[in-house]
């Protein structure tokens, strides 16, 4: 590769995570503080790879029960019917509500899986010190940060249904265990994305260790 680009790390500078101010850090960053806002300064997010893996693996583990257990149970005239995320989406599709089925499928199935896959790919590529297309990998990271919140849709749908349909034996809707695990998946993937430091992608692309 050509000469390393001028980075803050190369110039012994760190930008503050809270206020964005760039300041010079002499020696090791440990204990350095931002002169403007007093936040702790780090060249890179501390223990980024370990923390991201930890949250990501926890999210993968919760993803299984999130799909196996029902997200809600509809009790209508004495009959109970439970739906998982997937069976709920299929029900909507069968009843001609395919735009809703598509929203639920994208937000609850596609987005979490894609987010987990992209973060795992980024972690592995950084650990293997890959130099493959750092700009595209950074864009993938920004995508996971932007779309993760939309997975909450199903949780809100369940909340609204539970709150509105409470007519005793006539019709009642209860939230299921699947919704609890699914909420955990959303929260854990948000933590995972927050823990990952996209600058690591560029560090290894330039053959430099952090």
């Amino acid at each position, binding site marked *: 590769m050509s000469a390393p680009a001028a980075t803050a790390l190369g110039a012994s500078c760190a930008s503050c995570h809270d206020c964005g101010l760039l300041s010079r850090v002499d020696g090791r960053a440990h204990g350095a503080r931002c002169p403007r806002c007093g*936040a702790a300064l780090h060249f890179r997010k501390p223990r980024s790879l370990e923390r991201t893996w930890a949250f990501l693996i926890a999210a993968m583990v919760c993803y299984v029960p999130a799909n196996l257990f029902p997200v809600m149970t509809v009790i209508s005239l004495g009959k109970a019917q439970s739906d998982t995320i997937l069976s709920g989406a299929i029900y909507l599709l069968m009843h001609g509500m395919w735009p809703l089925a598509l929203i639920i499928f994208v937000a609850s199935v596609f987005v979490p899986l894609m987010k987990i896959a992209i973060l795992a790919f980024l972690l592995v590529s950084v650990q293997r010190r890959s130099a493959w297309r750092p700009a595209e990998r950074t864009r993938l990271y920004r995508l996971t940060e932007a779309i993760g919140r939309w997975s909450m849709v199903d949780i809100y749908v*369940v909340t609204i249904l539970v709150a509105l349909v409470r007519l005793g034996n006539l019709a009642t809707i209860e939230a299921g265990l699947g919704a609890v695990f699914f909420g955990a998946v959303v929260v854990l993937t948000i933590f995972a994305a*927050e823990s990952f430091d996209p*600058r690591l992608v560029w560090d290894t692309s330039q053959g430099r260790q952090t």
Partner: protein
Amino acid sequence: MPTVACHDCDLLHRLGPLPEGVTARCRRCGGLLRKRTRNGFERTLALALAAAILFAVANAFPFLSFEMRGRVTQTNVVTGIVDLWKGGKPEIAALVALTIEVAPVAQLSLLLYVLGLVRIGRVPPGLPTAFRLLRHATSWSMIEVFMLGIIVAIPKLMGMATIVPGLALWSFVLLMLVLSAAMAAFDPEEVWERVEGRR
């Protein structure tokens, strides 16, 4: 000319004062360096005030009524959270409370606290902490996702009974638009500049 580093790839850039309405992006990865919006300070303050009023209305009134065989139930966000809690799902209730109530309230009060005090020429005590909390509150505030949830829930319920949208529903729609406009106009760097007396 001050130097800044890209948050996404660490590349250094010299970044002079930006004209209003100009966004500076990293030349290597396209990451956002700074966004200077047109009249951003005043606009954020005005929009945050409007959002606070809409938030109060959205929570004070029912957003949907559900009518089945002559029986009517209504819900607002708080009763929905309480029902989930009582229904044995406190984890979901807490998550909904955090993302629809606590985070948006924190987001709006911190914005109004910081911008309001700076506007009248005072330095807000605890400004760094306020900014730190604002960043977290913003990332956990999910009003716009909740709106999508309502859009999905309504047709699902229409199969069972009659659904009547309430006043709060329209407030939520407006709140979503006003709140995202406020955050889009917000430029924290301008607050620091005003506080440090550079302007």
